[in-house]
């Protein structure tokens, strides 16, 4: 690529162009302010001249042509180097302001690496970096060791309304208002002056201004005067000129106090600038600047170059001069060491050469510039004026680059400039950073991105005292070096990622959170899912944290959720991550938002369903009683049902129904075994663990029946909470009868909650229950819990593929893997629970014991025709209802009476003979059972009579 077309050349042209010092009377300034612009700002957009074609002749006889040219304009007061702190503050602000722009440059989701790549290629990203570089260089401008920033021309502007305009011109150019550089003697105070009369058309016609102008021409010379008339438009004119100012306004580098910020805000709210100008005004300003450049600045520079060149060749070139110079320099070696910087005034030979070289450079006669820079570098070296030496080396490097000569040599020059600057220490180290920017741009221009990246990395690691600004600069440069790695072909993604993370780290340090977040987010895809766990944890942690700071809680929680299951981290880190996660959740969403939490880990594949259909609640040995014992007892009690025989032809119909869902009964609990495990090395508390269910009762008015219309029964969270409420409601009104119970307000599923603590690395199986209360279709979806009482988690069961389950006690075979957790809830069927109270463990021969047999019907249906059968009819006898209320000894006393005993025996014998130890409960008990399940409690007396065998 041609060196002139590169970004470096562009940057250089903006930086290395003639400086115009501007001095204006307050009146003139006021005139310009009508457009919300200072005079400098008014003129600045027109200082970039790109449609010119000027012949330039410097030292050599051969003229060459310049196609484009640029000027820099500053108020005299602004020509001074800002203090270090102010400059840093300004840069920090610049970067802070660029954060939104940078984020906007990322089109689409930065998680995709392609997006980032595209962005780098389109160079939108580099634009704010270039701006940063420009601003950085601005803060370093106006140094005494360079002549680049010496004003070439002084523009004196007086308004036509000023009294005695001619004397005002003279007053303006007084030594007190000169910039510090001139006062110190580093710059020649006799710069070329140009006198301009600014006329406001709104104040009156041009004629009177013209008379003043004539006067000026007589006094100052025809060529040195100019007239500029503006404000011929009005605020409400229809055709305001194109707004060329807004984008170009340079924020002055001042300490950003609260006041100035307020002023800045006020400015933003104002109208766009340039409203008082019309198109002819704009054209006039433009012509004025072009004229100034072509007729004043360039010829002046040419002339000065020729003059200085002559002088230099006379005194310094040739063998004789060189020898003389050498001898002369040796003589003053001792003194120069002490006061290296301050000894060169504008009239010293070295400064003159520097001016010559810099002028040549600005007029793009790089050959001449290079010659003189080289001459100068040896001088400064023998003088040990290191800062100036480095400055010259820097320029040599740039000259060589622009001439596209030796690549190696240009790099060496810049490197040595960098080293020397760095050696100088203090504020000068900043110039080392500038040199590295040049160098990296040079590498980039030549396509050596890897070298550019390493140079930028070095720039980032440079230790310059600048507080926050330093780590910010490090961040900016690290980010750019990361982009360089991305531009290498093939792209070095991992290097890119690493440097981005380093940049993010630096941004975080100097609390540029938006930048940090953007940087971290763009590297997420590189590190995720690769198995480099510490890396991805680090990235997630920072994204989470930054998002939290920036108020993006969902993202923060999302990333922290990935962190909390980090079993590979140390205990301290684990608890740290967990604490931070809980803190964020507690302070933002709280318990309202149910998260797809992964702590504790739930084995969603291993979920077992248990039905409450076991024969006995007592020991497992009792449950394991042989079937034959039961069937013998059931004989004669249950009517023998003729089982309809299915042929294979009519089988599918019924099978399809059966396979579709599991069947369960309303009012009966089903248990689901869920395996929880804690991957961490710290104990965690889990509370409010319950199943989540979907319930569909097949009615059209589904929303109504939960009492919360907005939350349909598909929202698990809503279901639970409303369930609990409804439950409380029932508990509060125990006397509610089934008739009074409104169908619509009835809860559908009762889900009890469990609480447990998981120790480090513990794995436990918990049986969670669900009790459908009405008929319909219930689907167990997942499980929800509360982690540490703060974060609500939820997890769906994913059951796929057939599974072989060992049929434990009561575990049913699985009809279909997908439908395993779907239940067809049938309406309440009668259910009889029987328990015996006061069963003695030890009895004596012939002793009578009263045993209470409790029958309980939890269902809504009534149980009819209850019969009781015993395998030991001569041991168990059924007593009278009246005995129930009596205390145990007294009832026995009654039985001790001959009559009662006799009667009993008779009953006993009768029962034995008639119905094979079957006892039918009287109808009274039956009636009672029709009442709702909660209150049904039928109690019967039994006498256990043990006969000694």
């Amino acid at each position, binding site marked *: 690529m041609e060196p002139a077309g590169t970004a470096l050349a562009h940057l250089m042209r903006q930086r290395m162009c003639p400086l115009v010092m501007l001095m204006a009377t307050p009146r003139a300034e006021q005139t310009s302010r009508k457009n919300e612009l200072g005079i400098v700002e008014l003129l600045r957009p027109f200082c970039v001249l790109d449609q010119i074609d000027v012949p330039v002749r410097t030292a050599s006889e051969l003229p060459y042509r310049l196609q484009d040219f640029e000027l820099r304009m500053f108020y005299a007061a602004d020509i001074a180097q800002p203090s270090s702190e102010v400059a840093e503050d300004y840069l920090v602000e610049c970067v802070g302001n660029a954060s939104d722009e940078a984020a906007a440059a990322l089109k689409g989701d930065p998680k995709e690496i392609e997006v980032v790549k595209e962005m780098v290629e389109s160079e939108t990203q580099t634009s704010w970096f270039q701006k940063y570089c420009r601003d950085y260089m601005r803060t370093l401008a106006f140094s005494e060791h360079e002549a680049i920033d010496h004003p070439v021309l002084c523009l004196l502007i007086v308004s036509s309304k000023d009294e005695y305009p001619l004397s005002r011109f003279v007053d303006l150019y007084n030594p007190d208002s000169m910039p510090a550089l001139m006062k110190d003697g580093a710059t020649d105070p006799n710069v070329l002056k140009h006198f301009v009369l600014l006329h406001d058309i709104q104040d009156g016609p041009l004629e009177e201004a013209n008379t003043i102008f004539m006067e000026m021409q007589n006094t100052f010379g025809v060529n040195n005067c100019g007239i500029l008339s503006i404000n011929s438009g009005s605020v409400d004119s229809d055709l305001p000129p194109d707004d060329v100012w807004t984008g170009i306004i340079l924020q002055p580098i001042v300490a950003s106090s609260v006041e100035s910020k307020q002023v800045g805000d006020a400015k933003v709210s104002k109208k766009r600038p340039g409203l008082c100008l019309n198109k002819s005004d704009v054209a006039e300003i433009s012509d004025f600047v072009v004229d100034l450049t072509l007729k004043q600045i360039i010829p002046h520079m040419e002339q000065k170059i020729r003059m200085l060149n002559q002088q230099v060749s006379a005194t310094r070139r040739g063998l004789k001069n060189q020898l003389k110079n050498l001898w002369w320099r040796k003589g003053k070696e001792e003194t120069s060491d002490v006061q290296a910087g301050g000894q060169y005034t504008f009239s010293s030979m070295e400064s003159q050469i520097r001016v010559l070289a810099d002028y040549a450079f600005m007029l793009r006669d790089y050959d001449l510039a290079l010659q003189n820079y080289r001459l100068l570098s040896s001088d400064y070296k023998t003088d040990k004026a290191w800062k100036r030496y480095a400055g010259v080396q820097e320029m040599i490097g740039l000259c060589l680059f622009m001439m596209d000569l030796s690549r190696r040599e240009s790099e060496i020059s810049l490197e040595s400039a960098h080293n020397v600057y760095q050696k100088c220490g203090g504020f000068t180290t900043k110039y080392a950073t500038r040199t590295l920017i040049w160098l990296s741009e040079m590498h980039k221009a030549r396509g050596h991105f890897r070298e550019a990246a390493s140079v930028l990395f070095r720039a980032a690691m440079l230790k310059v005292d600048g507080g926050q600004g330093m780590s910010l600069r490090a961040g900016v440069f690290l980010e750019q070096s990361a982009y360089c790695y991305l531009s290498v072909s093939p792209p070095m993604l*991992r290097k890119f990622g690493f440097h981005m993370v380093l940049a993010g780290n630096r941004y975080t340090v100097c609390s540029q959170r938006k930048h940090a977040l953007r940087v971290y987010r763009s590297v997420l895809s590189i590190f995720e899912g*690769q*198995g*480099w766990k*510490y*890396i991805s944890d*680090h990235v997630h942690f920072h994204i989470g944290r930054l998002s939290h700071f920036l108020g993006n809680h969902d993202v923060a929680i999302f990333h922290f959720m990935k962190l909390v299951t980090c079993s590979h981290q140390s205990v301290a880190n684990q608890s740290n991550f967990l604490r931070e996660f809980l803190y964020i959740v507690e302070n933002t969403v709280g318990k309202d938002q149910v998260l797809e939490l992964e702590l504790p880990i739930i084995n969603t594949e291993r979920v077992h369903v248990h039905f409450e259909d076991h024969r006995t609640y007592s020991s497992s040995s009792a449950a394991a009683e042989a079937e034959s014992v039961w069937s013998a007892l059931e004989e004669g009690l249950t009517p023998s049902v003729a089982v309809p025989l299915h042929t294979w032809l009519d089988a599918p119909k019924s099978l399809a129904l059966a396979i579709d869902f599991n069947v369960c009964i309303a009012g009966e609990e089903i248990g689901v075994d869920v395996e929880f495990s804690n991957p961490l090395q710290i104990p965690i508390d889990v509370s409010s663990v319950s199943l989540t269910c979907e319930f569909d009762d097949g009615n059209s008015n589904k929303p109504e029946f939960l009492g919360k219309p907005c939350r349909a029964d598909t929202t698990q969270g809503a279901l639970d909470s409303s369930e609990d409420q409804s439950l409380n409601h029932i508990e509060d009104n125990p006397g509610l009868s089934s008739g009074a119970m409104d169908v619509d307000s009835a809860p559908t599923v009762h889900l009890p909650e469990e609480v447990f603590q998981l120790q480090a690395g513990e794995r436990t199986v918990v049986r969670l229950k669900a009790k459908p209360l009405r008929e319909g279709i219930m689907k167990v979806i997942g499980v929800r819990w509360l982690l540490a009482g703060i974060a609500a988690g939820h997890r769906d069961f994913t059951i796929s593929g057939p599974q072989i389950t060992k049929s434990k006690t009561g575990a049913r075979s699985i009809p279909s893997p997908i439908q395993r957790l779907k239940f067809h809830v049938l309406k309440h069927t009668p259910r009889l629970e029987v328990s015996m109270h006061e069963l003695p463990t030890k009895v004596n021969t012939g002793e009578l014991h009263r045993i209470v047999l409790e029958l309980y019907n939890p269902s809504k249906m009534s149980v009819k025709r209850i019969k009781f059968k015993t395998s030991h009819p001569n041991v168990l006898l059924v007593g009278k209802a009246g005995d129930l209320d009596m205390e145990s000894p007294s009832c026995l006393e009654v039985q001790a009476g001959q009559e009662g005993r006799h009667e009993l025996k008779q009953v006993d014998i009768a029962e034995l003979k008639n119905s094979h130890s079957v006892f039918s409960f009287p109808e009274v008990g039956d009636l009672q059972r029709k009442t709702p399940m909660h209150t049904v409690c039928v109690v019967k007396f039994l006498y256990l009579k043990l006969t000694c065998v």
Partner: protein
Amino acid sequence: MSSTACFVIVSRNDSPIYESEVGTAPKKDEAAHLHQFILHASLDIVQDVVWNTNNMFLKLVDKFNDLLVSVYVTAGHTRLMLLHDSRNEDGIKNFFQEVHELYIKMLLNPLYVPGSRITSPFFDTRVRALARKYL
């Protein structure tokens, strides 16, 4: 004198299958991710260097501040990477060769799926012993 050394085996699909801190410096939490970052980033360099030499031992490939990365690539493109701060090329070379041998033995195990994480405590103790011996 305490030294930092972090040894990682990276499978051919770029995910780490074995990691251990074998240095004598006290373990720090921040160091863990920094080491991973450096090693992960140097994979980019390894990718280039590996085709420029016939040797399995690639010597020093990358450095970050004062941390150096040495790499040894097996025929199956599994990379043994060592992050260290002391220059001891011979020792590192021997270490790599012995670990390579161990790794091959690991591969001979029919129950070990190549490219999966190495969890064998035997392997771990042997690697640590080698690190003590050579580094």
